[in-house]
C-alpha cells in the first residue's frame, strides 16, 4: 500500500490524517527529514505559513521538500498552498515554488470573514471522483491571484480558482480535511 505523509510541524495535520483514513489510506506524520524517504506523497496542511516556514528552516527541511516535490506528488491546503506557490504576497515571503501561482495571504479578510460555501466543481472533478456539490471551508484563506498556463482549475469560488492541479501536484485554498467529503483526498491518492 502507498504511504502518504502529512507534514506535522504545526497546524491541522491531525485533521488531514483522519481525512486520509476516510479516503482509505494510512497517514505518516512527517516531523523529520529522514521520514521523507518512506513516503510516496506528502500533504502540506493548514496552519500558519510563517510558523511552518520557520520550522522548515530550523529542521533543514526546506530544500528537501522542494526536492521531494520535483519527484513526488504534493497536496497543499491553505497554508500548504501558500508554501507551494511560486510567489506570495501580503506580505511577500519565501515559498517552495512548486506550483505556478501567485497567492495573496488572508485575502478574504479576518476570521469574521471566514465562511463555508457549496461549490459546483468542474465536471472533470466529478468524473474523476464522484458527482455532487463540494463543501468548501475557507478559514482566513488565501486567494490565487494569478495562475500560469500549466495550471488546471477543478473548482472556482467567486471567480477565483480554489482547487487546482499542476502535473502531480494538487492545491486547495480551502480545507477539505474539515468536511466529511473525502473526494479531494481521493483525487490526491489517485496521483500516487
Amino acid at each position: 500500500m502507498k504511504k502518504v505523509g502529512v507534514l506535522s510541524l504545526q497546524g491541522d495535520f491531525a485533521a488531514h490524517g483522519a481525512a486520509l483514513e476516510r479516503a482509505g489510506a494510512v497517514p505518516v506524520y512527517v516531523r523529520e527529514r529522514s521520514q521523507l524517504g518512506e513516503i510516496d506523497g506528502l500533504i502540506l496542511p493548514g496552519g500558519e505559513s510563517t510558523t511552518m516556514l520557520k520550522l522548515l528552516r530550523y529542521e533543514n527541511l526546506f530544500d528537501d521538500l522542494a526536492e521531494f516535490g520535483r519527484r513526488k506528488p504534493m497536496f497543499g491546503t491553505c497554508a500548504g498552498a501558500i508554501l507551494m506557490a511560486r510567489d506570495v504576497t501580503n506580505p511577500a515571503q519565501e515559498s517552495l515554488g512548486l506550483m505556478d501561482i501567485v497567492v495573496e495571504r488572508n485575502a478574504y479578510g479576518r476570521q469574521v470573514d471566514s465562511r463555508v460555501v457549496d461549490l459546483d466543481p468542474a465536471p472533470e472533478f466529478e468524473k474523476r471522483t464522484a458527482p455532487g456539490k463540494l463543501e468548501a471551508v475557507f478559514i482566513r484563506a488565501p486567494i490565487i491571484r494569478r495562475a500560469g498556463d500549466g495550471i488546471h482549475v477543478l473548482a472556482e469560488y467567486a471567480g477565483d480558482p480554489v482547487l487546482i492541479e499542476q502535473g502531480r501536484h494538487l492545491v486547495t485554498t480551502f480545507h477539505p480535511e474539515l468536511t466529511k467529503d473525502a473526494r479531494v483526498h481521493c483525487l490526491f491518492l489517485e496521483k500516487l
Partner: protein
Amino acid sequence: MFQFSSEQFRLKVGLAEMLKGGVIMDVTNAEQAKIAEDAGASAVMALERVPSDIRKEGGVARMANIEIMEAIMKTVHIPVMAKARIGHFMEARVLEALGVDFIDESEVLTPADEEHHIDKSDFKVPFVCGARNLGEALRRIGEGAAMIRTKGEAGSGNIVEAVRHMRTIIREMKQLTVLGKEELAREAKNLQAPLELVEWVARHGTLPVPNFSAGGIATPADAALVMQLGAEAVFVGSGIFKSSDPANRANAIVMAAKNYNNPEKLLEASRSLGTAMPGLEISKIPEGELLQTRGW
C-alpha cells in the same frame, strides 16, 4: 441541542485546529507582536499588561487599548487574539467589531460578572476559555467556546498549576470512557456539565474542541511538558517578554512545541536563553490574589 455541525461552530473550531502545534504569545504593543511573529508564533494575544504586571500593579484589568490592538493587527499577518473580562459581553462585542480573530474570556482580567460567563454561541468570532477541570471545560464549551486552555496560574512563571489542570482534564476524560449510560448521567450531575457533552467525551475520549495549555509556561521544557501531558498547543504569557532575551526565548519555545517528543532537540532549544522570568511559589500567593479561581 448542542450544534456541533453548525457552520459557525465548525468555522470557529476550524481556526482553533489551525493553531495546533503552535505557540500563542502575549504581546502589549506592535513591536512585541512583530518579534513574536518573526520568532514563529502561530498567533498573538493582545493585552494591556502581561499577567505578572497585572499581579504586581493590581487595580482593575480591562480589555486592551483599541489603538494598540489596531496597531498590532496592522503589523502582523498571523491571527490576533484579545482578552475580554469574564462575563463582559460588551467588551467582547467591541472586540468582534474591531475584527480580532479570537477572544479569550479570561480570568487574567478582572471579572465583570461573578455569576455568568458570556453566551459565546451568539458571536461570529470564536472564543477560548480557561478551565481547571473537565466540568469547567464542558460548561464553557456548552456556552459556545471553540477552544479550551488550562488556566494554570497566570503570571506566576510556575508550571505546577497548568500541569495539575491538564492532568485533571485528561484523567476525567479517560474515566468517562469506561462508564455506562446511567453512570454518565450521574457524572454529568457531578461535573455540572451538559449531559450530551459528557456523552460525547465518553464516546471520543477527547474534548469536542482543541485543548491547549496556558498559565505558567516559562521555558521550552515547560512547553514540552504540557504537550506531553496532552496539550495540543501552548499559550505563553509573561514568560517571553519578562525574560532577558525575548526573541530568542520565543523562538526556542516554538521549536520546543514541535519537538516535545525529542529531548536532543529540546536540549538544543534550551541553550543560551539568558534568564527566565522570575517565578512565584503558588503557596506564597495570597488566596485572594489567585487568578485561577475566577469564573466557575
